[in-house]
């Protein structure tokens, strides 16, 4: 396994006015990795990708792409990025759009195999404006591969796709990775990150909260939400977040079983006990509120 670093940030901070989008982030992307960037909206995932793609420069710190600045167009010859599908040029045909994008790269790929890989062969001569949302999404992802990249950044690649289309797309990404390609993927869907990524970087509030293997991060994300009606509660172990709505208390915990045992042992009066899997978003909010639990 090679350890060549394709992209990295060193101590990068990015502000938008008073808002700190990224706070001293240091991250290496090594050749051959399939990295999932996980985090709620506004966590800083898109800012991070924009920095790597050369759209933004850091307020402080350095961003490197293949050893140079991503702001230099020449450094971007070996990357691929997904456009937002809402912005695709409506009047162009699918094949033309692919040709147009690949014309920017020294080693643009042939459009036939590329469209084939993403299940777009039948749509080659259709105007983009006439495609369905899912078809546009697939084209947007395909465009990231049009320049025969070594490293692709896929921002929410399967949002709005049905199950079949999602699996087709995942296969496309896996094929690319199997041939030695490097992938950085952002997603809201834990399932998607689980299906694809080997390494997971959890971002929240502009910081890297966790950077580990899929398995380790899955444990962290295995957070439960215990809801009950109770007037007063003692200090309970393993609670990473508390939210009160009148009589109702919601406790976010890493170990729901232990929490319930402890509640019973403490002999506090409660009713309406409910244990639920948290959404990813809730889990991140809890983790973000108490980053110490990850230490």
């Amino acid at each position, binding site marked *: 396994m090679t350890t060549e670093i394709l992209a990295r940030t060193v101590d990068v901070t990015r502000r938008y006015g008073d808002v700190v989008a990224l706070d001293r982030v240091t991250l290496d992307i090594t050749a051959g990795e399939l990295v999932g960037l996980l985090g709620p909206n506004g966590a800083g995932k898109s800012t991070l990708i924009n920095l790597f793609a050369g759209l933004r420069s850091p307020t402080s710190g350095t961003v490197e792409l293949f050893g140079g600045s991503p702001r230099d*167009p020449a450094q971007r*010859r070996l990357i691929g*990025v997904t*456009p937002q599908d809402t912005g695709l040029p409506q009047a162009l045909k699918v094949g033309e759009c692919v040709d147009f994008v690949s014309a*920017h790269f020294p080693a643009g790929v042939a459009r036939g195999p590329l469209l084939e890989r993403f299940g777009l062969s039948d749509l080659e001569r259709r105007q983009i404006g006439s495609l369905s949302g899912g078809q546009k999404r697939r084209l947007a992802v395909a465009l990231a591969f049009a320049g025969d990249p070594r490293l692709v950044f896929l921002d929410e690649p399967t949002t709005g796709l049905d199950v079949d289309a999602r699996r087709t797309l995942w296969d496309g990404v896996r094929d690319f990775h199997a041939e030695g390609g490097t992938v950085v993927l952002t997603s809201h869907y834990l399932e998607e990150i689980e299906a694809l990524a080997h390494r997971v970087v959890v971002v929240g509030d502009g910081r890297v909260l966790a950077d580990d293997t899929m398995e380790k991060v899955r444990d962290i994300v295995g957070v439960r939400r215990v809801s009950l009606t109770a007037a007063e509660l003692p200090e309970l172990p393993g609670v990473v977040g508390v939210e009160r709505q009148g009589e109702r208390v919601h406790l976010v915990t890493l170990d729901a079983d232990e929490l319930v045992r402890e509640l019973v042992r403490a002999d506090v009066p409660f009713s309406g006990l409910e244990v639920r899997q948290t959404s990813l978003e809730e889990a991140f909010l809890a983790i973000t509120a108490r980053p110490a639990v990850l230490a």
Partner: protein
Amino acid sequence: MALAFTHAKYQLLETARIPIAIVGSAFFPAAAMLFFVVPFAGDHPVGATMATASMMMFAVMSTSLFTFGVGVAEDRAQPWDPYLRTLPAGAFPRFAGRILSGLAVMAVSLVPVLLIAAFLTKASVTVGGLLLGLAALALGSVPFTLLGLFVGYVMPTKAAVAVVQVIFFPMAVGGGLLTSPVDPPAFIAAIAPYLPSRGAVELVWAAVGDFSPRPITMVMLAVWTLAAGAAAVWGYRRDEGTRFA
């Protein structure tokens, strides 16, 4: 540079798929030719030639202001624009491609005016005069292209559409494009020399007929071109700084 042509090609392809856009920019000058020039000056060789020159300047002004003003504002609103910035080419091919495709649309909008002048009026010009006239049009389009770019870079689309119209019409009328070159109404005679449309059209008149541009209009044309250039560069940098800093 090859990439600039690629960009121009696909931009034209997009424009051509919605042909009403081209029809629109060719319609007004052609209609003005049919309604004003043909019936009133059509039988007068010099008058028809000068009026045709005015209408061509009119077409060039409208396409430069609209394609660049509204086109750039629209591009900026689309997420496609930042995506193109991630490709290994930088901002130049896109920009140059837009200028090239704008010139092409401009050329297309001139064709009906030329045809109407040739077949329905007594306007006449030598081949050299015609080429010189086209060169003068290209030169005269520069301040309007720059003004259009300025508007496009500082305003959202809806505002750009309105502002471009507000700039275009007074400049066309005030510059004397719709009135006689030699004997305009008094208020037009008073303001015309200070508008870039006047300097531009005087160059075209000089190219195709017996007309000497006045120094004041030439100086004002240069001043407008420089000012519009500075404004366009400022707008471009500001936009880059806001969106891609």
